[in-house]
């Protein structure tokens, strides 16, 4: 079959179902008046390639009645020179006669998706729009114009977006060099960048700007809730706040070395800046003309909104990639099909990367072969082998847990030491560098652990004898655990430090507790140091490890160095780094409102550092990172990190008493009190509505409803899975039936037409029987059987027809050698 393209002039729209028309109207098709061509080419499945949409629409038209289908104006293209294509003269709608402007646009949308050459589509489009269009009546015309305007603005906005699209050229060169797996990492980075910009914008506009611009007022009643009976049970202590704030002093030295050190530590002159929580006042800011801006309320609301928006964005992103994962795991995943058909990355441009890509596809296939061998090895494991293996695995897991525990303990003790050292009496006599190092010690310890322990995990997992994909998964899960656990331990140790029991009137610790005047600033400083450390580590890894390694291995002529080669771009670890940075941002932005700014700048600079690394310093990994497979995994890890962040922030808002010396909540006993005070000031009806809505009864009822909905959805999805299995089996059987019937039809073609009519009628009417068609039963059936069903095992009771002479022979056409298992499947169909 040559690749001739369809010519214009034969495009008509029809809604008729192909085979039905064939069978009912054009009787001579199968029979002798079409010598040399077989019906094989008229089968819908064969036509589906040429009329991709036609087949889809004709399938749909089975559901809707004829009248409805006529209105839908389906396009059914045909080939001119091909006699098999039946001219559809029944119920045709000519596209040249479409009068309605709206349907014109709809047809244009369908036209875009026709798999025909561009020139053909262009002529179709010209003909479509050349006819005169009757003007629409008033209201619908106005509505249509509105839609048109809206479409135009949408297109304009997308084009504008393309002009300003960030990093577009970078993406193209990265994709050409390293492939789409690495590109997905950069796309993820860009997504995080925009999320952080949003958080930064919210905080800047609603927290920083008002505090800087407007002067502080006094403790107004909107803040203290004084005089309102509904909020009378909330304790507000303004006098204590005033005295303690006066006592909160910071020594600021102006020596130049100290300035830099303080910048890196967040102490000294940095401590009372807008960077940290302590700067913000608890009053209602005076906007002039007796308007006020309630700072504490703004602070808490911005926090809640930022977290909610992050959650919504993550959920949206996850749903998109979740569908793909769900699809590939619920049905039988076609590994080999995926490798062969979607293995080559069409966007690759660089020659070396292309060679590497084909090598990695080769490695993929070889590793899949090894998978097969691994499966055989697993099946051959004896009982004793299994016992030994499981004990080894158990021991290794214990070892991993011990590593994690040891890391946690190390972080805890270092944090403790660092806190007590900094606040101790003789700190001024110590060397500045020592103080800096001790301040940074928790961050350094975490960074070192994050770098070294994954290597240990990588070595240890080899003893567990898992298959290769499983190894990758298990190592990744352990590294994720390590990172989240180290952060959790850090937070826990900080909490222990600040919730020490002996405190004075201003909630500052007295000995033996560490004296921390403003614990929120202290926490903010810890996260500030972590963010700086993370950024420095990324910088150092690229410039002090990957760049020298690349230079050494490519410029020096030593064999050993050539064999090591440049570093590989490790996508999973890089993505985990990004997730870690984002976790720090979420944890820290409540205590240090400018951390999102820092993260935005850090991500922006990191993009260019990583781009340098991807384009010049590293090569694509031996096993290319499959963007789709782990995309949802990383979103999942991000979600877990997000919920992990919500716990400390939520707990500190609800339970931990704020320090009276600083910050927007210094007059309260709990930070959440401002919310209660605020809506106590609302009109009584609104207040009572909100009160009932947040009562336990309503919340409990909503929870039960939610659980019921989840249960219903999961029941439905399991039903769908069953249906998919049943339909797959049906598909296989239908295919076999089709093969059998075609074989019989072609064998009997050229005989009387009447017999073909009957056969076609029966083929149309009766459902295919269950069970595979057996050649043996065909041979055994007697010609005189009275049954009327056309089934593969009862073909000879067609009336008035003696069975053909070679009826008893097995159905041999072209591949005579492969009739195994009594299946017809191996009969070849080499017609044409």
């Amino acid at each position, binding site marked *: *079959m*040559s690749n001739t393209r369809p010519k214009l002039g034969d495009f008509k729209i029809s809604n008729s179902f192909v085979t039905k028309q064939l069978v009912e109207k054009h009787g001579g098709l199968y029979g002798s008046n079409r010598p040399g061509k077989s019906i094989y080419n008229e089968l819908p*499945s064969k036509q589906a390639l040429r009329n991709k949409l036609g087949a889809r629409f004709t399938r749909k038209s089975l559901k809707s009645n004829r009248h409805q289908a006529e209105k839908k104006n389906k396009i059914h293209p045909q080939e001119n020179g091909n006699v098999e294509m039946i001219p559809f003269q029944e119920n045709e709608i000519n596209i040249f006669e479409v009068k309605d402007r709206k349907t014109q646009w709809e047809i244009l949308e369908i036209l875009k998706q026709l798999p025909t050459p561009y020139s053909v589509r262009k002529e179709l489009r010209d003909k479509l729009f050349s006819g005169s269009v009757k003007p629409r009546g008033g209201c619908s015309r106005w509505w249509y114009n509105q839609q048109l305007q809206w479409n135009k603005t949408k297109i304009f906005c997308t084009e504008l977006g393309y002009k300003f699209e960030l990093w577009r050229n970078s993406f193209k060169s990265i994709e050409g060099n390293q492939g789409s797996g690495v590109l997905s990492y950069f796309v993820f980075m860009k997504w995080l960048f925009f999320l952080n910009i949003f958080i930064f914008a919210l905080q800047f506009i609603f927290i920083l700007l008002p505090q800087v611009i407007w002067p502080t007022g006094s403790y107004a009643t909107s803040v203290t809730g004084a005089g309102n009976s509904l909020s009378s049970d909330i304790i507000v202590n303004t006098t204590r706040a005033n005295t303690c704030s006066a006592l909160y002093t910071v020594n600021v030295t102006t020596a130049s070395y100290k300035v830099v050190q303080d910048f890196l530590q967040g102490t000294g002159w940095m401590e009372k800046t807008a960077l940290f929580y302590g700067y913000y006042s608890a009053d209602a800011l005076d906007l002039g003309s007796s308007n006020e801006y309630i700072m504490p309320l703004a602070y808490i609301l911005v926090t809640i909104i930022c977290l909610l928006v992050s959650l919504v964005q993550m959920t949206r992103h996850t749903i998109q990639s979740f569908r*793909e994962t769900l699809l590939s795991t619920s049905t039988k995943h076609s590994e*080999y099909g995926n490798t062969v058909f979607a293995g080559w990355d*069409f966007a690759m441009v660089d020659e070396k990367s292309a060679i590497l890509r084909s090598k990695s596809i080769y490695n993929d296939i070889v590793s899949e072969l090894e998978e097969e061998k691994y499966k055989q090895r697993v099946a051959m494991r004896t009982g004793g082998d299994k016992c030994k293996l499981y004990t080894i695995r158990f021991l290794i897991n214990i070892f991993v847990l011990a590593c994690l525990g040891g890391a946690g303990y190390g972080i805890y003790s270092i944090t403790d030491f660092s806190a007590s050292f900094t606040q101790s009496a003789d700190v001024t006599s110590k060397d500045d560098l020592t103080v800096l190092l001790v301040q940074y010690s928790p961050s350094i310890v975490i960074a070192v652990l994050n770098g070294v322990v994954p290597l240990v995990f990588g070595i240890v997992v080899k003893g567990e004898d898992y298959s290769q994909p499983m190894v990758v998964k298990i190592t990744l899960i352990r590294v994720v655990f390590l990172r989240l656990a180290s952060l959790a331990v850090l937070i826990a140790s900080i909490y222990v430090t600040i919730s020490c029991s002996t405190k004075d009137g201003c909630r500052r610790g007295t000995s033996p507790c560490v004296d921390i005047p403003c614990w929120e600033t202290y926490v903010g400083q810890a996260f500030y140091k972590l963010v700086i450390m993370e950024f420095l580590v990324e910088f150092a890894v690229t410039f002090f490890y990957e760049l020298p390694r690349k230079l050494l291995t490519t410029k020096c002529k030593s064999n050993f160095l050539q064999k090591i080669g440049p570093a590989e771009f490790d996508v999973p670890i890089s993505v985990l780094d990004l997730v870690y940075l984002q976790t720090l941002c979420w944890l820290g932005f409540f205590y240090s409102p400018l951390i999102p700014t820092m993260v935005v700048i850090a991500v922006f600079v990191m993009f260019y550092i990583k781009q340098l690394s991807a384009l010049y310093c590293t090569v694509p990994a031996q096993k290319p990172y499959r963007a789709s497979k782990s995309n949802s995994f990383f979103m999942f890890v991000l979600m877990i990190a997000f919920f992990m962040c919500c716990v400390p922030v939520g707990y500190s808002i609800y339970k931990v008493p704020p320090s009276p010396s600083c910050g927007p909540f210094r007059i309260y006993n709990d930070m959440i009190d401002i919310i209660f005070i605020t809506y106590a000031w609302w009109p009584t009806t609104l207040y009572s509505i909100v009160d009932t809505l947040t009562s336990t009864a309503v919340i409990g009822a909503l929870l039960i409803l939610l659980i019921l909905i989840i249960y219903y959805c999961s029941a439905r999805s399991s039903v769908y899975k069953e249906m998919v299995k049943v339909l797959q089996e049906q598909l296989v059987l239908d295919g*076999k039936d089709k093969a059998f019937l075609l074989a019989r039809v072609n064998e009997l073609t050229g005989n009387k037409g009447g017999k073909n009519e009957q056969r076609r009628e029966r083929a149309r009417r009766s459902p295919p029987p269950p069970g595979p068609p057996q050649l043996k039963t065909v041979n055994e059936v007697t010609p005189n059987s009275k049954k009327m069903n056309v089934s593969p095992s009862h073909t000879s009771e067609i009336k008035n027809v003696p069975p053909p002479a070679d009826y008893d022979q097995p159905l041999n056409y072209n591949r005579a050698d492969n009739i195994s298992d009594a299946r017809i499947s191996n009969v070849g169909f080499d017609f044409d």
Partner: protein
Amino acid sequence: MKDCTFFTRKEILRIFRRYRELLPEMVPLDMTNGETNRIKIPFETIRKMPELKENPFHQRMCEVFSEDGSGNMSYDDFLDMFSVFSEAAPRDIKTVYAFRIYDFDTDNYLNKKDLEKTLLCLTRNELTSEEVSFVVDKVLEEADLDDDGMLSFIEFEHVISRSPDFLNTFHIRI
């Protein structure tokens, strides 16, 4: 906008510039309607484009998208090709053209020979013949639902719908 590709106006202009850069003496700055179809850049020039140079399927791609099947592409064919490979093209039309590209003997079926040729292109002839036949058998085992030893378009579409990487990899940025 009455366009029947998946591109915006700016992208179409950009693609025209790239097309013209391939062979400026043959392609006028201003093409009327008839000329976009008539003037064809030969295959040898097109295959040197950076986007296509390293692609093992570039010959099949040009053959599939060129109207006469020879590989010489007019501007319409060129635009069509990149439109199908763009991000905005839906999965259906990409599947159709992927099937045509992998169908080396153009019989509208992917039989064993087509699959073998595909594999050899992908791995640049590095696999041994028994590995090739093993993989081909595996693919047919997974995808060939009606057991006729070849993949029809419906079966191919079924494989692609379960392939999570297809949309990511079947994409060219220009």
